[in-house]
């Protein structure tokens, strides 16, 4: 499915002295089966933006379109199933006595029969590499395990778009790698992923397109190469290095991923 935000603005507490303009005229599309990276500093509006994707927050002005249809006309539960939103630190919302039951919460809310619920629970837990945790208490898991289980709780709705808000914050490198692999695996089966992160390296690794936010406005969109090479000051370290090399060696191209960068550097040395 195609998710589109058209001229979306959001004001917190309008008309009071606490008024904050968090989003200002944001245009954004999430295409079918792509990984869209959303980058931006603290307070740039990233988290506000993602909550508009399933209308947990309603835009103060502007529209959210799902396959061209105004999302406000869809049933709320339908929209939230199709656009799965994983909050920042999603493990804070684990509540059931066992991992299984926690992951089963969303599919049960959808009114699926128990057989289907069980299947989805197993599937989602395996997808995040947590199949063996099913009967454990979510409160007795490690931080990384909790995070994976919490993500499985959203995957169990079989969303068409998965929105992840800072999914790797505070994770160890191995769990982080697994999570990025999961994102790429989802893309392979046609699920769109929106990855919000301030870790430019990981966005560079998995994103097909990037949207950069600055003070509630979209400051750049495009492929990682386009966005990072036009604003190298806000690009991953690898891009900053190749950007400088490009001045004397234009043949290096515009590599973004770490592997690509290594290959380009090897080619440069060999040639």
């Amino acid at each position, binding site marked *: 499915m195609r998710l589109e935000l058209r001229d979306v603005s959001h004001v917190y507490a309008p008309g009071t002295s606490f008024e904050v303009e968090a989003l200002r005229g944001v245009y954004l599309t999430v295409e079918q089966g792509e990984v869209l990276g959303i980058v931006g500093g603290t307070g740039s509006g990233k988290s506000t933006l993602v909550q508009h994707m399933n209308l947990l927050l309603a835009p103060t002005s502007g529209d959210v379109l799902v396959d061209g249809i105004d999302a406000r006309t869809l049933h709320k539960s339908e929209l939230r*199933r199709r656009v799965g939103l994983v909050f920042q630190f999603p493990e804070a919302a684990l509540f*059931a006595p066992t991992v299984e039951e926690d992951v089963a919460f969303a599919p049960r809310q959808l009114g699926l029969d128990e057989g289907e619920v069980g299947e989805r629970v197993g599937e989602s837990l395996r997808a995040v590499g947590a199949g063996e945790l099913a009967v454990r208490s979510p409160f007795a898991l490690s931080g990384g395990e909790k995070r994976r289980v919490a993500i499985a709780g959203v995957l169990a709705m079989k969303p068409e778009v998965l929105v992840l808000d800072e999914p790797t914050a505070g994770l160890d490198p191995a769990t982080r790698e697994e999570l990025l692999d999961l994102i790429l695996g989802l893309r392979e089966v046609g699920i769109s992923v929106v990855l919000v992160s301030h870790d430019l390296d990981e966005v560079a690794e998995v994103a097909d397109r990037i949207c950069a936010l600055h003070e509630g406005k979209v400051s750049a969109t495009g492929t990682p190469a386009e966005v990072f090479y036009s604003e190298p000051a806000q690009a991953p370290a690898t891009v900053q290095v190749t950007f400088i090399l490009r001045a004397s060696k234009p043949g290096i191209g515009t590599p973004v991923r770490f592997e690509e960068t290594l290959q380009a550097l090897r080619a440069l040395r060999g040639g």
Partner: protein
Amino acid sequence: MTSRALGQYYPVASPVHALDPRAKILATAVFVVGLFLVDSTVGMLFVAAALVALVGFCRIPAGTFARFMRPVLFIVALTVVFQVFFSREGPTLFMWGFFEVHTGGLRLGFFLALRILLLVSSAGLLTATTAPVALADGIEDLLSPLKRLRFPAHEVAMMMTIALRFIPTLGAEAEKIRGAQAARGADFSEGGPLRRARSLVPVLVPLTVGAFRRADELAEAMESRGYRGGEGRTRYRELHFGKRDALALIVTVLILLVGILL
């Protein structure tokens, strides 16, 4: 988060805000006790007029303060209804079946309604004009003579401060968890009261777990900064009981005395 409720601090600069919290706590105590000794309607009206003037001194807009009072209106209304229907004093004004309305009941209902409103407003004014931390400091200081009787005055005040401090934190946390569960299809607005209560379980469980975790973290943070309880502990903000504080207290006593004598 921006809606103001009864008991919330209203941060503006006013002569009342600037008073020593102890003076305000004592004045409120005097007011509350005195209010029960005022037994004439004229006296009650006099005290009410004084309180209205005080709200003005606090620089709290009358409309805002009136909104503070909204939650108590139900109790006030209930009191009036009970008095009007069940008191049979004085001449009868109105009769319908076994409902009788007497002037005495009307008078008593009005009197009690006024007393409740004044009680709640005085407490509301105290919390509206005194920052929570100052309030806790004031209470600690007023309770400190009880330390000789091994009453943990400092600890009680610290507990109050922490509880007040964490209300907005827990509120924000609850909002986040609600959002996360709503994203998983939780619906908090549909169904009967039982279903709606049950739909809160996925919010309350993680909120409680989070509160315990926070308590642990806070205890460690306090200990790592050398907190060992109230013994020999100094204050960043010293309280000063000045002439103005004494004056405020005297004026309160006088107003209540006049109210009682009227």
